[in-house]
């Protein structure tokens, strides 16, 4: 079917008119009609969802009530499940260095170092669903198992349904976003070990898009999904904003500037959507 110039013109005018007349059909805000009415149609933003693991699930970890303290028992019980060690012929996805050329959909900002040297990092636009829930982050965080644990905390007994890792020649244990190391007696909560793989994201994971890469963040760890469906712990990408600090983050002041530090990652507080969020920055 061939179109004449006049036909094409009519079609173009028709399409333009449709765009001009039709109202916005989507909502994006919460507490006012003004916000809802002013919001544009949902941007064709990527809303990635983690894909289910293709690896067979031996069992699902039962819920552990955060308030229930582990019972003191000898630490010799058998783990409920083994987790395959991460032995890969291919290197893990590399976190983009801060000096790489930015992709088109990554916004570059300058973070002012205390020594006044601007450092170029990339900031990722927040996913809409994350934006809406940010002002209730404090409450949501308290509902997650991992919120009651911090690095250095000792427990006598691992939660039922824990997983065991052997990674980097060391045994670790995992449950609900919390990683444990063996202690002199019992277990000690530790930082998420790099390259550890879990079959499912911890509760409350935020989605962070950096260019074409999709990171997930929960309980102070950043994850990338693997082809087998699992998620591995990776280094924090610079220039991304998260709504919650890791449970064991500590406040540090460098040259009069306040940061938070956890597991080698520095977070700078920023005001995002009217609430405090945390931007990953180079070590100040």
């Amino acid at each position: 079917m061939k179109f004449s110039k006049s036909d094409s013109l009519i079609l173009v005018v028709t399409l333009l008119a449709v765009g001009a007349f039709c109202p916005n059909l989507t909502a994006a805000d919460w507490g006012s009609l003004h916000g809802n009415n002013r919001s544009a149609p949902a941007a064709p933003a990527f809303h990635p969802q983690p894909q289910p693991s293709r690896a067979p699930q031996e069992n699902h970890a039962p819920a552990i009530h955060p308030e229930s303290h582990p019972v003191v028992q000898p630490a010799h019980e058998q783990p409920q499940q083994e987790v395959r060690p991460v032995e890969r012929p291919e290197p893990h996805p590399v976190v983009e260095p801060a000096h790489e050329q930015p992709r088109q959909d990554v916004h570059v900002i300058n973070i002012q170092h205390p020594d006044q040297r601007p450092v170029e990092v990339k900031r990722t636009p927040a996913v809409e669903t994350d934006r809406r829930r940010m002002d209730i982050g404090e409450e949501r965080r308290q509902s997650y198992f991992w919120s009651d644990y911090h690095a250095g905390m000792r427990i006598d007994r691992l939660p039922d349904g824990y997983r065991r890792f052997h990674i980097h020649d060391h045994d670790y244990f995992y449950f609900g976003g919390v990683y444990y190391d063996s202690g002199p007696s019992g277990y000690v909560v530790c930082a998420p070990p790099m390259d550890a793989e879990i079959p499912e994201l911890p509760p409350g994971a935020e989605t962070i898009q950096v260019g074409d890469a999709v990171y997930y963040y929960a309980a102070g760890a950043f994850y990338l999904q693997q082809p087998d469906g699992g998620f591995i712990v990776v280094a924090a990408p610079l220039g991304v904003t998260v709504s919650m600090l890791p449970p064991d983050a500590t406040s540090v002041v460098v040259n009069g500037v306040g940061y938070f530090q956890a597991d080698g990652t520095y977070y700078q507080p920023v005001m995002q959507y009217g609430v405090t969020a945390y931007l990953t920055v180079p070590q100040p």
Partner: protein
Amino acid sequence: MKPLSIIGCGLLLLLAGGCATAQEQTNISPRAESILRPALNFLAKTPAFSLNAEIWREHLDEAGQKIQFSRTVTMDVKRPHGLRLEISSPNTARGFWYDGKTLTVLDRKHNLYSMADMPATLDKTVDAAHDQFGIDLPLIDLALSDPYRNAMAKVQDGRYFGLATVLGVTCHHLAFTQDNVDWQVWVEDGPQPLIRKFVITHKNDPGSPEFTALITHWNLTDRIADSDFAFQAPKGASKIEMQTDESGSTK
């Protein structure tokens, strides 16, 4: 005229007509209109007011369970360029100041604040805060210079549901429909037609979560000083960057 031309023109008329119908306020009951318009015009003519409210937000968690979160809100408005807002709960407390020049957001829990230059009127500032920084303040509809026009901007249908009691106050219950949300409002039955309750239903979202506001106290008489809208940083507070909204979802 060629067949394709006829089809194109027909499609154009059909779509234009359909969209225009969606934008027009053609199905609002006279009773609903007769209550909402005076109520919001009464508010628009009030040069300054304060209110206290309890707001509830529903959130669908990862397990699909609908959870309600609450905040208390205090709002001081002095038209045309004064706004003071406190949003708090046992977990969080945030303050907002607008003095005709600057919008300041204070995170009281972390003692952090952030500032941004704003236009000279409250209406334009509300637009700018939303468009530039993705800030949507609860109940800000009441602070706009023409709250009736704002409320009815996208309404397609409005109905009246009779009298109801809200926090012991007899109110008229109205409900309105839009493409993106449905909303209900309860207007006090009396010489001062004040908004007592407000509900927005996000009907297009999974689980249709709602925002609910109960306005527990109105004060239309106390004088509000201009200095109340000027931000004074608390002792030890640190200033942080106010990030612009680059998600593309609010413009």
